């Protein structure tokens, strides 16, 4: 329970009296923003405004929302941006378990506060559709984010996030993902599983390339990448570690379709075989496990922008024929890119780049 020793009982009772006098069984929206709230939401709020659906306490200096919030039976939108939330106890304990609020809450805006990590109290809000934590102090996104099954809109711009957990890709309804103004160095290829993604904001990060799987996001219409140190020139192969015996055996089993049953192999090898990835080179039918060549190829999106996409190829022989040629882009590498470009153009009709 937060203490506000510097606020007088008079101030708090003044606010309570003011709100009590405005009590109404019909009021659905209550906007308290831009006035100083001396402490957490006063007890009685749920009694005075039982029909409350939207509560705006933005810019009120709140350091804790208080447990009265849990008693609001119909609240679906809570706006609490530009406050002093972020310390322990900012959000009431049992938020997600609150019998009514836990299910009714759909929109939560906590932008412009001081959260150093995504509050665990939020993770059980299975009905939450829109979450904003822009301009906070987040350094990471917890993998448990995948528990917010209803999430469609996730705004995390303006933090200090360095990486994206692949679990984010498990959110089935995510259509708007904002990660701009962070410190992200790479995008996990699993993000391509976000089939509903319509808008992806990655500008002002530390990306040098994107995973080629990004082409699979067929519904993506907006993609912002400005302010990233994206490579613009053809980059030669990076390091290549020769495959282990286990890898070679695994490749042979997969590419020759050697049949096996679960009883034939120890569990760890079964799981290993399951992780085979197909070589994206259309002229090669091979697979790879851990050992692969990373090569950056450029893809034109709709004939507009050349984006560096990271390709994983199963061996150096699989890489673009011109990789052994001179450094500058030759016509051959351009034609490889053009094949990719035609595929990309079909799949991403309206990708917009900024």
């Amino acid at each position: 329970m937060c203490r506000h020793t510097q606020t007088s009982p008079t101030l708090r009772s003044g606010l309570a009296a003011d709100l009590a006098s405005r009590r109404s069984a019909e009021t659905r929206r209550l906007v308290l923003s831009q006035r100083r709230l001396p402490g957490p939401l006063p007890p009685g709020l749920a009694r005075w405004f039982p029909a409350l659906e939207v509560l705006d306490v933005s810019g009120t200096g709140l350091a804790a929302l208080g447990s009265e919030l849990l008693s609001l039976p119909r609240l679906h939108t809570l706006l609490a941006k530009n406050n002093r939330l972020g310390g322990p106890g900012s959000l009431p304990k049992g938020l997600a378990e609150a019998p009514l609020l836990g299910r009714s809450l759909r929109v939560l805006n906590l932008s412009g506060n001081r959260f150093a990590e995504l509050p665990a109290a939020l993770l059980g809000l299975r009905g939450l559709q829109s979450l904003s934590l822009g301009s906070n102090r987040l350094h990471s996104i917890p993998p448990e984010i995948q528990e917010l099954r209803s999430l469609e809109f996730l705004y995390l711009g303006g933090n200090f996030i360095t990486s994206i957990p692949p679990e984010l890709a498990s959110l089935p309804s995510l259509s708007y993902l904002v990660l701009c103004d962070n410190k992200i160095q790479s995008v996990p290829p699993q993000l391509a599983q976000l089939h509903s993604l319509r808008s992806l904001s990655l500008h002002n990060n530390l990306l040098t390339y994107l995973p080629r799987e990004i082409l699979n996001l067929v519904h993506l219409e907006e993609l912002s990448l400005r302010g990233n140190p994206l490579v613009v020139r053809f980059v030669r192969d990076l390091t290549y570690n020769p495959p282990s015996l286990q890898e070679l055996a695994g490749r042979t089993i997969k590419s020759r379709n050697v049949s096996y049953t679960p009883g034939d192999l120890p569990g760890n090898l079964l799981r290993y075989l399951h992780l085979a990835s197909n070589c994206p080179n259309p002229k090669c039918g091979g697979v790879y496990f851990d050992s692969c060549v990373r090569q950056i190829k450029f893809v034109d999106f709709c004939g507009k922008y050349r984006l560096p996409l990271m390709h994983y190829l199963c061996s150096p022989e699989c890489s673009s024929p011109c990789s052994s040629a001179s450094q500058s882009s030759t016509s051959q590498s351009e034609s490889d890119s053009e094949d990719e470009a035609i595929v990309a153009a079909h799949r991403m009709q309206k990708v917009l780049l900024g």
Partner: protein
Amino acid sequence: MEHTQMWKAQTLEELVQILHHLFAGDKVNVAEVQALMDSYDSNPLEWMQYAKFDQYRYTRNLVDQGNGKFNLMILCWGEGHGSSIHDHTDSHCFMKVLQGNLKETLFEWPNKKGIGEMMKKSERVLRENQCAYINDSIGLHRVENTSHTECAVSLHLYSPPFETCSTFDQRTGHKQKVRMTFYSQFGERTPCATAVLQENN
């Protein structure tokens, strides 16, 4: 020497009326128009009917067609929304912030071959009621709402009106022509019928 009259628009409606007067002839006195736009003190009650936001990108909402001489529109920028680098198809462009803040970054035109990183000339943040002016001879610009907590609203005047412009890739200078569409016109939502490539954001 043109006489630059100082106008004061008390309301948005008055602003539109005076604009019709200023654009009645063939010549545009840029200083006069800019002073007029500056003079209007933004009053949300007067423009909120045009301010329709989209969660995914900024919107263009037509307010007045200026008897064919100009387009006056309101742009609504959600948190983090920004435009591409673009030109203004040989037209005058006035931009006034009605709410929030907008960052304007000016760029030089890329060289003819369109290769190489584009050169940033300058950047500034336009605050509420400030008005900026640009045309193709000045350069290109990108406009963004860099706030992660506040929306922004701006009033734009383009003369002559134009429907297409070029957008530019900052890293290469590569340009592409795009057709612009309106999210709403005169306060009514006007969805796009076709999947036409929209202006970059």
